[in-house]
């Protein structure tokens, strides 16, 4: 085995996980290949498109721009952690209701970004929503249905608070 491999421990979607990684291993590859969480997609691996966005200790990060060893000890949330065992969470449900996706490849990253937005600003207006989503590229939807979904989710989540 490569002598530089290090063992890291992190909490992923509420569960404690370990992985043995080279220092150069990206968090995205660790999540997808070592921990089997392939919902996080790799759109560019250049830090631009936002498809690989996950939440680390409450803030979104591009998992292709972070080494797995940097996440040692962190609390990581991915798209797989959003839904309960059977039900979609309110943001996912709103994306379904408003067709906030077509091919679905950028969707996990969009959902994580939408969650962060709504946690920090429960009632974003359209411009704030578009601004918050403008770090995530989508090639299919023209964004409008995503914006609609996020705004609908904000109303939904708002009622719950």
């Amino acid at each position, binding site marked *: 085995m490569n002598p530089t491999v290090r063992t890291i421990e992190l909490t992923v979607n509420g569960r404690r996980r370990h992985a043995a990684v*080279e220092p*150069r*291993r990206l968090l995205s590859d660790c999540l*997808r290949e070592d921990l089997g*969480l*392939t*919902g*996080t*997609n*790799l*759109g*560019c*691996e*250049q830090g*631009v*498109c936002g*498809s690989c966005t996950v939440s680390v200790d409450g803030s979104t990060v591009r998992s292709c721009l972070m080494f797995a060893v940097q996440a040692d000890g962190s609390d990581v949330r*991915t*798209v*797989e952690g*959003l*839904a309960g065992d059977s039900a*979609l969470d309110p943001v*996912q449900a709103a*994306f*379904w*209701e408003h*067709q906030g*996706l*077509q*091919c*679905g*490849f*950028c*969707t*996990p990253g969009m*959902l994580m970004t939408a969650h962060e937005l709504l946690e920090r600003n429960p009632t974003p207006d*359209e411009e704030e*929503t*578009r*601004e918050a*989503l*403008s*770090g*995530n*590229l*989508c*090639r*299919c*939807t*023209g*964004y*409008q*249905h*995503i*914006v609609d979904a996020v705004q609908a989710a904000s109303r939904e989540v708002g009622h719950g608070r």
Partner: protein
Amino acid sequence: MAVDEHAPTTGVRWIGRDLKRREDPALLTGAATFVNDFALPGMLHAAVLRSPHAHARITAVRTERARELEGVVAVLTGRELAEVIEALPRFCAEEVVEHAVAVDKVRYAGEAVAVAVAETRYLAEDALDLVDVSYAPLPPLVDMVAAADPGAALVHENLGTNVVFEKTFTHGDVEGDFARAAHVVHRTLRWPRAMAAPMEPAGAVCAFDRARGRLDVHSNSNMLNFAAWVLSATLNLPPEQIDFHPMYTGGSFGSKHLPAKAIAIAGALAQATGRPVKFMEDRADNLLANDAQGPDRLYQSALALDADGRFLSVRHDVMDDYGAYFIFAVAGNTNAMAQTTGPYAIGSCETAVRAVLTNKNQQGVYRGAGSDVGNWALERLVDAAAEDLGIDGVELRRRNLLRPDQFPHKIPTGNLYDSGDYPAVLDKALAHAELEFWRAEQARGRGQGRYIGIGVATAQQRSTYSSTEFWFHNPGPFVGMSTTAESVRIGIGPTGGVSVTMFSPFWGNSPETVVAQLVAEELQIDPETISIGYDSTAHGLPSAGPGGSRMTVMLSGAVRGAAAKVREKMLQIAAHQLEASPEDMELADGAVRVRGVADPARAISIADIGMKAYWYKADLPDGMESGLEGSFTYDHPYTTLPSDDRTDLGVFYPVMGHGVHVAVVEVDVETGHVHFLKYLAVHDVGTVVNPRSLAGQIRGGIAQGLGVTLMEHVRHDAEGHALSGSFEEYLMPLASDVPTVEVLHHETPSPFTAHGVKGGGEGGRMIAPCAITTAVEDALRPFGARVDALPITPDQIVAWAHP
């Protein structure tokens, strides 16, 4: 060929319903398996080394150091790979040979020069760092005009020229119409190289069973059956020994019809190593070398008008930069000939096509497939005529629109428009456009140093291609492929459950939702109860997959045919059981009953019929085969062959949609920013099957059209180095760039298709550039700006305003 005529469907129950997509939950939870999520035991990973030079001889490739690295299984040069597989598929008649990895010479920056395959992708990339390539640079051909010069260096020496194709297509009395014209407007127009760039790059996992000589391909090809056939020659295997498996496709827009290089590389390495191999393009691979760059055209265009402003003839002299290879020949130019004359009554037309090879990644297919450019060039001419003649642009368009009583309408090229009511679409757009309000705002704004512009475009969106468009540009007589079929299988099980199989994969639209609605309509059952899946090519029926806005049309026809077979058998079984005549039976509410009779004693449920069909032969009519399924292969609904002299190109894109877009923009002349105040799209794509899915296609297409109009551009420096290898360099629209789009429909059913459906997958992208260009030009009228080239960059806007 037969024309499949029927009356428009009335009294439908499921078609037209605004149902949520059944595809979505798997995608929303991360459960969907894209090709990069797919793995096989013992799978290796490949990576590709790319040329930094646009044009160079490869004088040496040394791979020894790379091979010695622990975990590396093989490192192959182009020459070595060419011993395993043949050249890539090509549809051009010309001898333009492309290999998955370059042999002896590289023809664009980013072309593959070596591949490494290793236990991990990291190790494969490490190996590439240890490959030494020696190049002898050749003069880079970056400008197509210079490349067309007889003295220029050659991209392919065997051709003796870089002008790989040159032909003038004349339809009707073009010379006479221009001679008798009262006005002729001319424009030199430049459409920029853009590219599909789906969020998911192309990739494949290939596994070769040496004992059986069989290759399994898990890829994001969206043209499975076709890919298996055309790639069999590349992969050196008979088609029946290749099984292409359907995967979720993370967007294509034309770029994943074949993904020939990704499949060839993974397939070759699987054969060479005997282990499963994954090759996924990374983003640079995709942007530099995916072969899905769009048209890159220089137009010299002219429109002839009579004294009343009626269009007589349109003429385009097109030079098109095809890049280093020529996979689909000039299909991007012939595609536009489906609608050269747009929605207008124009008696003749001519397109001269000069295709030039240069040192760039080659053109492939990108949403619109060249008709996007044709629309833009024609609408530029119409705006130019309006300006020159002092006629309002909307009035000039209305004066020339085809009338509803002129359909079906054969245009000069030979293609046929099936149906339409273009004045009604324009009326609907104007009823919602509030043009008077915006004209007043524009006038008011100019007094305040605000620059508001209004653009109205009326344009075509051809749908449902026939394969003749891929060969009719070659001299006749020649008969090439003459259909492009799509199939569906419907099975009803012994408990009455309905399962449907498709043979083209999910690609980002909503094939499962749409097929469920169509089957529900045909069998009068609840779409939620229908199970839908996909099958691989080894078990598959003919299909060609999404492209040219064909899928909803073709699936509608295939479902109707397959459903008719199972319905007929159910009626026979029920009639036999109820001692009635099959002609007196009908399907309603999950049962077959005597027509119009609600008596449950005179009905038999689909579940009971299924049980009898599978397990109770004694209850079936004499001689009936057990089982209950129907397959149907739906051919293109209306194709005619081109004439030998090609004065008539034949009917090849007859299912003709139409649309009117209205864009209102405000241009900041200090920053060059274009801000949208309004965007309205009224489309006629026949009968709408699922409104929300269609609206998604329209809005997504408009965003891509906005991209090519205002920002997207594949650029190269003077040495031919690609300047678009990342999303930081190749700018695509963000959420903050794209306006809210109001979408309305006018439905003119097609007389040729099941339920009157027309294809709507490309119209947004095909029409948006026309309206946005006109709007920006209108905003900058005080500066005398004339938009003849895209993209309209902030720099350009500022330069116009501050000369």
